[in-house]
């Protein structure tokens, strides 16, 4: 279960009054009572822990900065609470995660992730995001064109720090450390499983393939649009002679469950509207920050028309009705049976082993979120568990001690 930790109470006129939900939203105007945000953080933790108790195999937080749709600038702060609170459960702590190029020096990621793996008794999944243009370039100040090289260097340093038996000097371009020997090291050997989140860039797929990591597609587009990208991923994997282990692939999907389809609309429509109207309110051209995409992706995206199409989808979000969100599977919402059927189809069609479900949407209040989580875990989740069983794959990208049947 993936949680964004959004501001749940942005004003009604937010997207007409302010140019962006990200980077520039004015804290003092949008948070009249600062302590309310503390309540949001605690509810978020409660919802994730509840999900763990109710049956999710993993709980997941991410990193964003100066972003009212999600603001856990250090996801590992949340991760440590979640690790401690779930030490009695067979649940993975999925950090999606410390943004590599902007956590400096990168040794901090190695150290913090190792702490989490230790705190949790070896339950960490180490997500290694590249970082968005807004977070990495506009907030954290790194030039976009350097971002992928910085990412690669950070990754190499982190993995070497985890695995090297000797203290070593690291003479990188952005990390120059004379004596690398982190305390602690992770419990998991050779290191925690690594997931690489992305949207659809083949350079991300290539990186995941090169290192035999699991790739997860993180977007708000849902499974219908996701199918095109995941088809591309599996074609790419075949061309690279990778096996078709579905656990090579993760996918983020928004899911809302109520007793009936009609009830779902009644309960969730306004929160979906809140999310897609306010939470994705970002100037279009910020997504394509110059230098963020490498030249090949930039030119291919424009020449093929894909970039424009993606932008159109994002622009249209503000106009969609509940019906459109649901019919297009941008949000899979409805009765347990409806949600079950759609998710089983999505998992099979996109060939997803690691399904990442977002159940808190935008302004959704705490009790409603828990209701949706409860229904999902009792009525839907059991039907998703065995989808790949007959193919006999092992989830190599999962903490070793959690790969068997869940006992706790």
């Amino acid at each position, binding site marked *: 279960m993936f949680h964004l930790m959004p501001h749940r109470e942005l004003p009604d006129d937010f997207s007409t009054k302010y140019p962006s939900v990200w980077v520039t939203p004015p804290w003092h105007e949008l948070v009249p009572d600062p302590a309310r945000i503390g309540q949001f953080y605690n509810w978020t933790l409660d919802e994730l822990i509840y999900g763990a108790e109710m049956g999710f195999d993993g709980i997941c937080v991410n990193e964003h900065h100066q972003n009212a749709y999600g603001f856990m600038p250090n996801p590992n702060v949340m991760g440590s609470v979640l690790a401690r609170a779930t030490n009695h459960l067979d649940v993975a702590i999925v950090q999606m995660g410390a943004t590599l190029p902007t956590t400096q020096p990168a040794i901090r990621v190695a150290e913090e992730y190792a702490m989490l793996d230790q705190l949790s008794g070896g339950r960490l999944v180490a997500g290694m995001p590249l970082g968005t243009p807004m977070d990495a*370039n*506009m907030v954290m*100040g*790194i*030039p*976009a*064109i*350097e971002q992928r090289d910085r990412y690669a260097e950070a990754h190499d340093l982190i993995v070497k720090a985890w695995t090297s038996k000797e203290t070593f000097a690291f003479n990188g*371009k952005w990390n120059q450390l004379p004596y690398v020997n982190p305390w602690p090291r992770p419990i998991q050997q050779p290191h925690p499983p690594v997931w690489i989140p992305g949207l659809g860039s083949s350079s991300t797929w290539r990186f995941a393939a090169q290192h035999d990591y699991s790739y997860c597609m993180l977007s708000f587009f849902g499974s219908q649009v996701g199918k095109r990208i995941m088809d591309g991923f599996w074609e790419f994997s075949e061309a690279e002679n990778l096996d078709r282990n579905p656990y090579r692939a993760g996918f983020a999907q928004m899911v809302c469950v109520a007793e009936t389809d009609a009830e779902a609309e009644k309960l969730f429509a306004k929160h979906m509207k809140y999310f897609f109207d306010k939470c994705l309110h970002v*100037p*279009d*051209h*910020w997504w*394509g*920050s*110059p*230098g*963020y995409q490498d*030249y090949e992706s*930039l*030119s291919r995206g*424009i*020449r093929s028309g894909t970039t424009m199409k993606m932008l159109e989808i994002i622009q249209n979000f503000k106009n969609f009705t509940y019906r459109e969100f649901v019919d297009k599977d941008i949000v899979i919402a409805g009765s347990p049976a409806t949600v079950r059927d759609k998710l089983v189809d999505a998992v099979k069609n996109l060939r997803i082993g690691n399904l990442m479900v977002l159940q808190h949407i935008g302004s959704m209040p705490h009790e409603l979120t828990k209701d949706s989580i409860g229904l999902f875990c009792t009525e839907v989740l059991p039907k998703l568990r065995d989808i790949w069983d007959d193919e006999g794959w092992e989830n190599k990208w999962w903490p070793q001690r959690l790969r068997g049947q869940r006992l706790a």
Partner: protein
Amino acid sequence: MPYNEIRDVEVWDGDVRTQVLVGGEGPPLLYLHAVMGLQWDPFLESLAAHHTVYAPYLPGTVPGDPDAHKPLEDVWDLTLCYDEILDALGLGAEPVAVVGHSFGGMLGAELAATNPARVSKLVLLCPIGLWTDGRPWKNPNVLSMAELAGAAFADPTGPVAQAALALPEDPEALGEAIIAITWNLGVAAKWWWPIPDRGLRKRIHRITADTLVVWGARDGIISPEYAADFGRLIRNCQVEMLDDAAHVPQLERYDVVPGMVRAFLDD
């Protein structure tokens, strides 16, 4: 005058390649372009009437060679690379005039500070490179085209702005133009992002070349207040502030700037 040659140059011990547009007649002049990329526009045509103009593409912005910037990591590397470009062009015997616009102005100032004897005269058009907290600044990489026009031109819907920012109508050509502009902005940002203060303040005292700073009084990209700072910090420097101009005075005030620059260079 138009350019009449596209010269390939290879510098940095063979690791950096770029192209230089060469045109005109007269004493040599190095032109350093701004972040959107090199255009042989009417201003360069005017310079070429009285100088041999050498206009290098920032490495990485030559169509077809997008990763050429990679060996150059910081402003020091970039400045020395341009010093080598002058050598590669055979311009070692005499000092040369350097004209730089915006990002190119910062680069020109760094070049003149690094190797003062190499630069005879320096013309800086709305140069970036100095910073005072609180002064208005607009980041070109996060603006829409409309916002960019509004900040860079005193008359954003007028003919000069329209011509400078014109995009092709044909969808395929439009796509290629968007790719080129986006990539050029991304490459240039390597040396000025996140704040266009990369240390020039520490080195500017080294400039010995007679310098002319030209600014548009309505510059919405980088505050015209910096003009006085350049004027004060560069030992032999005159400042011209132009009305009815913003960030591209050489085109917005084509009626006076080419003549002003020519008179300054000839003096």
